């Protein structure tokens, strides 16, 4: 019995050695105010743009009139990711930013009408969108997940009926990035609200 007790003590000490090495364990990065603030800025940027599109005329829905927004949003997302990659144990936030970038790529494809009208996306298209990100050119390119290579898509319009869903999704996605960031404040529950 004494031997078992002693063995258990050894196990506890071994476990402590394994998991500590210092005074505490860290499984996820610390809160980063810049990430939080930039994610919020992106949420506002997308929401504001999509609200204005909802109320715009046909001209406003054309890809050529939104290309600048997509370029700017893409740069913002890249900047957010570069910062996130520099932070220790930040895999979750990096993956979330990648998902936002993929959704931007889908929005661009929708605006340029690069997908089939009567068939769902293929697995190859989905893979291409995830790997290549947004195609900010005026053309449809199979390499970026388009159904076929098609030039000069500037006159193509975003389907107005789809805008409320797109807006909800971007709001929720950026909200999820902010929620994950706020959770990293640890222990201070009031700050998570």
């Amino acid at each position: 019995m004494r031997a078992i007790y002693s063995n258990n003590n050894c196990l506890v000490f071994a476990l402590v050695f394994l998991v500590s090495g210092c005074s505490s364990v860290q499984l996820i990065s610390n809160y980063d105010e810049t990430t939080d603030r930039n994610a919020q800025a992106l949420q506002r940027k997308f929401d504001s743009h999509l609200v204005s599109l909802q109320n715009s005329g046909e001209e406003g829905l054309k890809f050529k009139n939104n290309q600048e927004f997509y370029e700017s949003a893409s740069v913002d997302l890249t900047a957010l990711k570069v910062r996130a990659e520099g932070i220790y144990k930040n895999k979750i936030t990096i993956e979330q930013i990648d998902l936002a970038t993929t959704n931007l790529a889908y929005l661009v494809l929708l605006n340029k009408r690069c997908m089939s009208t009567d068939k769902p996306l293929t697995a190859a298209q989905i893979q291409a969108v995830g790997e290549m990100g947004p195609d900010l050119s005026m053309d449809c390119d199979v390499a970026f997940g388009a159904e076929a290579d098609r030039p000069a898509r500037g006159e193509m319009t975003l389907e107005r009926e789809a805008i409320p869903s797109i807006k909800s999704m971007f709001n929720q996605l950026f909200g999820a990035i902010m929620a994950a960031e706020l959770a990293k404040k640890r222990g201070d529950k009031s700050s998570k609200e």
Partner: protein
Amino acid sequence: MASLKLEDLVTSMLAAAKAVFDKRWPDIKDYAEPEFEKLARTLIQIEGIRTRKKISEGSASVLLEMQKNTTRAVMLAVEGMGLVLIEEAINAALKAVKDVVNTALGFALI
């Protein structure tokens, strides 16, 4: 074609998440419940505009892919919250044995 029901969707998502997060669920549910409801509402919205033929099948499939990515991002946030809770539990456990361990060893390990 049977249409989607908000309550059914939310109930299914909540049941799946509760099973995964088990005892940590009460700490996560305040965030997860309203987020799952938002996800379900957007799904219903997409189904509605497709059923009314306001968007093409191709566009509907793009919106569904976007919705899947949004769901993944929400689940990642939930996972992050779970990791913070596990981390807090481990550190609380370490703190609880700190004095005993350090005294037994004769130096400050923890």
